[in-house]
């Protein structure tokens, strides 16, 4: 899939591009609004990652303009201005999602995957892992015919690990995905450990959970072949 990254901070754009390239996306970078505007007019993209704080362009104007010429693209706003209004305005103008900088690359990946599923119907909704199946729509986890009774937080954690399968996720990445940054400093690595522990215990009642690995010094990984 084609991705355009509109971001004036070149090193950040490069890191995102490196990451997405590894995820098999075709990536282009624009560091100015003018350049982005031209690219959007000429090319078709599946995803446009849009920084609102461009030096030469109001990001929201660019979004409005791009929406008119490139209907199919999914827009994800990435901004460090973090104004409360920006989110609302961006989503009102038809952006598909909004990420406040600094965001985690795995969070971006999860959001893009979710949008791709919703918008382009690329994959089946069900995710199979080990002896289990996860259905993101009904928010249910099943093992064979049996439904596994897990809490909302446990489901979110599991879903996130599966969206980023075979990749080690740090506790902060997991924490941020679940609780966002509205809680301020109340980050507690213990939170994730407790939830993972309980999740393992629940799932182990049905089938082995050795695919849910602890990565020493880093965090957790869903290792699925």
């Amino acid at each position, binding site marked *: 899939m084609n991705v355009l990254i509109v971001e004036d901070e070149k*090193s950040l754009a490069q*890191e995102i591009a490196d990451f997405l390239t590894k995820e098999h996306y075709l990536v282009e970078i624009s560091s100015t609004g003018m350049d982005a505007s031209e690219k959007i007019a000429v090319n078709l993209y599946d995803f446009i990652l849009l920084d609102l704080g461009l030096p030469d362009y109001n990001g929201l104007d660019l979004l409005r303009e791009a929406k008119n010429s490139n209907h199919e693209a999914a827009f994800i706003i990435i901004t460090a*201005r973090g104004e*409360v209004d920006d989110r609302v305005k961006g989503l009102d103008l038809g952006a598909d999602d909004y990420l406040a*900088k600094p965001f985690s690359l795995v969070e971006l990946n999860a959001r893009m995957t979710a949008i791709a599923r919703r918008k382009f119907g690329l994959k089946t909704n069900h995710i199979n892992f080990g002896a289990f199946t996860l259905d993101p729509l009904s928010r249910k986890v099943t093992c064979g015919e049996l439904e596994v009774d897990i809490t909302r937080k446990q489901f979110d954690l599991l879903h996130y690990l599966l969206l980023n399968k075979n990749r080690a996720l740090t506790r902060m990445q997991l924490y941020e995905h679940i609780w966002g940054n509205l809680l301020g400093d109340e*980050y*507690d690595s213990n939170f994730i450990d407790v939830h993972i522990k309980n999740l393992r215990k629940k799932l182990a009642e049905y089938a082995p959970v050795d695919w849910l690995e602890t990565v020493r010094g*880093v965090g957790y990984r869903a290792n699925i072949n």
Partner: protein
Amino acid sequence: MKLRYKLAWYNLLTKLLFVLVFLLVMPFLLERVNLIQTDNELIGKREQVMSLIGEFGVEGLMDGSLNQAFGSYNILKQEYISLEPALSDSLWNYIEVTQRMVGDEIIDYRVLNYSFMVDGETYLLEIGTSLDRIYQTERNIRTITLILLALFVIISFAADTTLARILTLPLDFITRKLKETRSPALYDKTPLSSSTTDFVYLDQTLTELMQKIDELFTREREITANISHELLTPVSVLQSRLENLISNGDLNEQDAEKVSESLRTLHRLKGIINSLLLIARVENHQFLKNESFPLNALIREVYEEIEPIARDKGLELNLRLDCDRHLTNANRSLMFTLLFNILNNAVKFSGNPAAGPVEIHCFREEETFKVRISDHGPGITEGQADELFQRFKKRSSPEGHGLGLAIAKSIADFHDISIRVNSKPGQGTTFLLEFSAEA
């Protein structure tokens, strides 16, 4: 109490007081006036009688029988006159109130006694007027006065109230504008049209003040956004780079751990920046307060978030929802953060699970809705408690940087919730949230 009600009450009370004084004094005044009037009449009658005597002589009046007394009542016994030879030579001229037996009833009379000499003989003239008539007049006057006074009080009260209402209409206008204002930017700038210059001045001043605050807010908002951008962009670059390093998977375990450690440090920096920005934005009223929801449901959500952590520590977490409060004009995610931070704090600082549970208790006291979150942790001194909500003042903790409660405080202020902490070393800490009166 509203100004116009105060004015109305004041008017009514002063008028009633005036009426009361008047009613107390009136009988005395009436009596005095009536007596003087009666006395003048009696004196006038005496002059008439004396002039008759001058014309016709005493005999003319006394039917010629000089030695007999002459007396006459009018039919209804309201007045009488008597003339008789006096037994003594002293001269009298006075007016008194006496009781006379007429027929079989006793009647109060105002009587003028006057003695005079004609042809060497002394005569005593008495002219009396029944006081019954005077009393009757007094009663009539009193009734009429009472009715008039009552009418006066009612009409003037109605007039005063109406006038006060009309006069304070501009004040209502201003109050309504203030009440409707959710943020200075949304302040209704329609100027007030009124002939009362004080109110016009007040309105103008308020509008200017709101504009000034709005400008300050806007400027601060821009500054916050710029600081946010300048600080968070480099953090963003670093975070992405470190994450890429880890997820590339070509690091050995030692290096991966180091990078992971750097990410944690970076995360802390990010947490501090985001917390400070969150406080700034809350204080700057950048969040909307347009949601309405029952508080119990939200508390249950927070409880469910933290309960697993507490259980993992072996700590009991009690939920007592005695009553509910439906919040309006609130921000749900901020309220969640507020409750989460306080409850998390209580759980985090509960040392020994055997000391006692952490409790969340919703209750109503003197019409005020309150939420109490108490723990049996080590507690803190009063001095520390005062500083608890200040930025970067924290209870000794390996994690966090002491902004969680500062955030809670700013959110509480934003929602007009008073937040207090009570703590005793060795006994535990209690947070008390008091919600403002229901709108």
